[in-house]
C-alpha cells in the first residue's frame, strides 16, 4: 500500500527522498473502524486551508498525527525508525539550506494561521487609514510571499479601463492621431488597441485592399501596417 504524505500546493519545496531502507513488510489494510471518517478528513483539509494534493511516498509513513493514530499499530511500529530517519534527513537539509529553512518556517506559519474566512474571527474594526484592504488588487508580477507565509498565486486580471480618450468616438483615425501626438504617441496608442479596433482602422482607411492581412489574428502585423501607411503618407506629403 502506498502511503500518503499531504503537501500543501502552496509550498513549492519537494519533499526530500527518504534514504533507502530495507523493505518493510506491507502493513495490513486498516479495518473500516480504524479509518478516519471522510467528514473528519474534509474538516482537516479545510483547517489547513490550502488545497492539497496527495503525493505517493512509498516507504515513508504518514506525517500527520491524525493519520498516525488511524494507522494500524503494527505499521506505526515498523514505520517509526523510517520516520525518524526521514525527519533527521530533513532537519539536516534545513540546517544546510537557509532558503529551505525559510520555506519550511513559512509553511508552518501557514498551518498555524487561520485561513478560511469561515473559521477566521470576523473583522469588526476598519483597517487603518492608508492600509490596503485584504482584497485590494495587487501589482502584477511574481507571486509574493505574504506575511502569513502563504504564497500569493492569485490571478491578476488587468482592470479594463478602455481605450484612451484621445481616440474620440468611433473608429480611430491614425493619421489624425499622428498629426496630434506624433509617431511615439501613435505607437503607444496602437499598442493599447485590440484586434477589432486595429482591423477596423485598416478597413475604414483602406490600408489592406486585398483584405488578407486583416483576416489574420495578428495584431503586431496590423500595427506595423498602420504605422507604415501613416509614415508613407507623411513622406509623400513632404
Amino acid at each position, binding site marked *: 500500500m502506498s502511503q500518503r504524505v499531504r503537501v500543501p500546493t502552496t509550498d513549492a519545496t519537494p519533499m526530500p527522498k527518504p534514504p533507502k531502507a530495507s523493505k518493510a513488510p506491507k502493513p495490513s489494510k486498516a479495518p473500516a473502524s480504524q479509518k478516519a471518517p471522510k467528514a473528519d478528513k474534509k474538516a482537516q483539509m479545510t483547517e489547513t486551508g490550502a488545497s492539497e494534493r496527495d503525493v505517493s511516498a512509498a516507504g515513508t509513513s504518514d506525517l500527520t498525527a491524525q493519520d498516525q493514530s488511524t494507522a494500524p499499530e503494527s505499521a506505526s511500529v515498523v514505520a517509526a525508525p523510517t520516520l525518524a530517519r526521514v525527519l533527521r534527513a530533513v532537519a539536516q537539509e534545513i540546517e544546510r539550506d537557509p532558503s529551505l529553512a525559510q520555506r519550511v518556517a513559512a509553511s508552518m506559519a501557514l498551518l498555524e494561521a487561520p485561513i478560511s474566512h469561515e473559521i477566521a474571527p470576523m473583522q469588526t474594526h476598519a483597517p487603518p487609514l492608508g492600509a490596503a484592504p485584504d482584497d485590494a488588487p495587487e501589482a502584477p508580477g511574481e507571486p509574493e510571499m505574504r506575511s502569513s507565509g502563504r504564497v500569493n498565486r492569485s490571478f491578476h486580471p488587468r482592470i479594463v479601463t478602455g481605450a484612451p480618450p484621445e481616440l474620440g468616438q468611433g*473608429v480611430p483615425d491614425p493619421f489624425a492621431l499622428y498629426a496630434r501626438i506624433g509617431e511615439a504617441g501613435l505607437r503607444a496608442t496602437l499598442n493599447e488597441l485590440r484586434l477589432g479596433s486595429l482591423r477596423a482602422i485598416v478597413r475604414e482607411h483602406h490600408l489592406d485592399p486585398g483584405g488578407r492581412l486583416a483576416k489574420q489574428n495578428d495584431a503586431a502585423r496590423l500595427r506595423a501596417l498602420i504605422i507604415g501607411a501613416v509614415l508613407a503618407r507623411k513622406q509623400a506629403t513632404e
Partner: protein
Amino acid sequence: MVAICIANNKGGVGKTTTAVNLAAGLARLHQRVLLVDVDGQANATYALTGRVHPVPSLYDVLVGSRKIDTVIWQTNEENVWLVPGDGRLQNADVELAAKAGREWRLARALHGLDYDYIIIDTPPSLGVLTQNALAASHKVLVPISLTEFSLIGIDKLDATIEELREQLDLEDLEIAGVIATFFEDTTTARDTWDILEKKFEGQLLETRIPKNLDLEKAHREHESVLSFAPNSTSGVAYLQLAREVKRLVPARARPYNRRNSNA
C-alpha cells in the same frame, strides 16, 4: 426598418453576446444595423469599440436633451453602428421615474432614423429602461441559457410584455423568438431544450448557440465572433441565427416610426 429588443430579466443568459453577434451577423447579410446599448453595464459598447463608459452616451439622450444622432458611432464591425451606453444609465430608472411619457423616450429619440435593423440590448431587469426598449421595439428576442436556472422567472417577462402591450397599446409587440444559448451536448441542456420546446411552441428558434470560448475571446478583442473566429461553432451559429432572424423578422423599407412615438 425593424427594431428588435434582446430581453430577458435574468442576467448571464447571453443577451449582450447575442445583441453584438446578431448585429454583426445581420451586417454580414448586407443589412445596416444600429445597436443601442440600454444596459448601464455598457458591455456591448465595450465589446464593439473597446471604450468603457463613454460620455456622451444614450444616457444624455434619455435623461438629457441630446439628439441621438450626435451619439451614433461607427463600430469595429462594418455596417454596424452603435448608440453607446455608460454607467450613468444604472441610475436612469430612478431619474426617469417622475418624467411624463418615460416609457417612450427611446422610441421618440429613434424616430426618423434609417437603418435596416435596430438591435436593442437591455439590462437584466424589468425597469423603466427595459420598458423603453420594449416600447421602442417591434419584436422581442429572448435568449435563454440551457441551464438549470434558466426557466425560473421566464413567465415574468412574458407577463411584462403582455402588460406593456396593453398599457402602451402596442398591438404588434410580441416575442418573435426564443434563442437557446450556452448549448452543450449534456443531459441538462437537452432536457432544458425539451422543456423550452413545449413552453415556447413555435417560438423556439432552430439555431442553438453553443457554449464556446471564442465568444469570450472575441469580446476581449473588441469585435464579434464572426470577425474573430468566423469558422468557430459559435461564429457559424450566429451567422445562421442572423439568417433565421432576417427570415423571421424581415426589415421594412421605411424609416423608424414607432406607434405613439410622438406622444
